[in-house]
């Protein structure tokens, strides 16, 4: 049953450029996918390791800027990707070492500060980042000789990367390491006593999270052909976090749904209302207050409850309302 749904979803996703109406929407779909990769990356830390970060746009942006610089220095796309991801991994390691000096809210504050440093550098260190003017690049890679210039072609390339990301996430989640990460979220003290190296687990989770944020950043660079400090602003990190919590943390589907939600809203709302930030803030507040576990778990919970109520057999246990919260 699940396989059928998965196969159907794959077909629908692959056919998007064919059924969605026009290049504008294909581009939106590309955005949704690349930001979904970002959200999946953030979710490794927020959902599975239980460490909320408000600085991940910094890693996303570092990948984009690094990629842009390598490219404008005249290197080929393989070098661009390798360079961008290498720089992002180093930055992730640095972020991790610093942020893990704090626990709980201290961690969050440090990630905010780190994200702001990246923003400050992007904005002020004009000799490397060109400041507010940003950096443009020309052209997208041509893997296997196929051009990615058209929206549809770029969409399919992004879809391919997205599928790899989802598959690798699924493997990670089901693996012993994935279980270790979740364990440190739920009972760090006990994990320590059980023989796990809690700091190292968190550090590696951060690296994994940073890696996929970097991949997303690179895709963004190719999509937009331009990167500016706006990409690493606090609002960007907040949007990423919103994607994760609105969809539901600690699930695979959650960040994907969250990304679709935020991107669609952002584009639709921006068409009618000038003040997207206000709406973003309001949604944040509303979701945190009214639906803390996110839309996906909330909907799943309601669906299960509805199905249990439907069946004549009274055996199915009704999950307690109020949920666990994705924390």
């Amino acid at each position, binding site marked *: 049953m699940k396989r059928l749904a998965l196969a159907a979803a794959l077909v629908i996703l692959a056919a998007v450029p064919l059924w969605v109406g026009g290049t504008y929407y294909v581009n939106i779909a590309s955005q949704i996918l690349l930001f979904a990769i970002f959200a999946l990356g953030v979710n490794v830390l927020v959902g599975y390791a239980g460490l909320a970060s408000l600085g991940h746009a910094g890693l996303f942006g570092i990948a984009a800027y690094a990629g842009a610089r390598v490219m404008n220095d005249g290197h080929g796309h393989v070098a661009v990707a390798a360079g961008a991801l290498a720089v992002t991994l180093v930055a992730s390691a640095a972020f991790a070492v610093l942020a893990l000096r704090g626990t709980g809210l201290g961690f969050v504050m440090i990630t905010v500060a780190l994200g702001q440093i990246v923003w400050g550098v992007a904005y002020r260190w004009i000799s490397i980042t060109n400041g507010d003017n940003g950096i443009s690049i020309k052209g997208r890679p041509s893997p296997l000789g196929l051009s990615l210039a058209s929206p549809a072609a770029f969409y399919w390339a992004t879809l391919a990367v997205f599928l790899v990301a989802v598959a690798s996430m699924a493997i990670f989640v089901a693996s012993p390491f994935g279980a270790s990460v979740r364990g440190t979220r739920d*009972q760090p*003290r006990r994990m320590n006593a*059980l023989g796990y190296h*809690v700091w190292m687990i968190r550090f590696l989770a951060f690296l994994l999270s940073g890696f996929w944020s970097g991949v997303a950043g690179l895709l963004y660079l190719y999509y937009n052909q331009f990167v500016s400090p706006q990409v690493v602003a606090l609002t960007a990190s907040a949007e990423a976090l919103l994607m994760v919590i609105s969809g539901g943390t600690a699930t695979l589907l959650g960040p994907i749904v969250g990304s679709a939600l935020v991107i669609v809203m952002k584009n639709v709302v921006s068409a009618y209302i000038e003040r997207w930030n206000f709406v973003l803030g309001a949604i944040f507040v509303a979701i945190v207050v009214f639906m803390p576990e996110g839309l996906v778990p909330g909907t799943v919970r309601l669906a299960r409850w509805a199905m249990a109520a439907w069946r004549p057999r009274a055996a199915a246990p009704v999950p307690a309302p109020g949920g666990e919260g994705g924390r």
Partner: protein
Amino acid sequence: MSALAVRGLEKRFGGLRVTAAVDLAVEPGERRLIIGPNGAGKTTLFNLIIGELRPDGGSITLFDRDITRVPSRRRIHLGIARTYQIITLFQGETLLRNVTLSLLGLSRLRWNPFVRLARQEALVARARETLARVALDHLAERPLAQTSYGERRRVEIAMALAQNPRVLLLDEPFAGLSVDERRDVLRLVTSIPRDVTIVMIEHDMDVALDFAERITVLHFGQVVVEGDRGEVVAHPRTKEIYLGE
């Protein structure tokens, strides 16, 4: 050679001397009971032995190996495990997964991000066996949140037993249990073979005294009485401490 020895152990919180020059020597296979009124420093002693707290002075040896400076996460690899007074299990997981996590802590597999945990036959089988030892294998697939308090207390013990410790620290294993549940847990604890040395903290006197061979009485962080059951029960200081000064 003692299984577990503590010499001159000290711990201070600000001006308060929570553990005061504690000496303890537990022989291999022994069943030791640590008692004392609230605030005597019993759980702190366990925290020090397992490494969650760093002592301000003194030493801890495990089978003659000095573990005072060994990081807490390595101590289980050396054979010492503990249970907690407040249940600290993985709420969102099944009983089987809880015990599997415990086993995983000792295995290199815990760093592996590629294979499927659920497919690790050997590990999962051992987890089931451990659940069987505490008579909970029929509930292996049950989420922890849907088990009773008494069942969770047994899972607490299963978590520690799973790692085949040489020394087992049980922190108030009978707390909050009904009479029947207490009987079950006592049966479980007494069935643990002699190659495991057990040190238990407990408040419930009836059950604990049945179990203990030697008893150490702590008061204000110090050892005040030590001996076998008869000696300790008859000792005037014991009566003083428990009936008020």
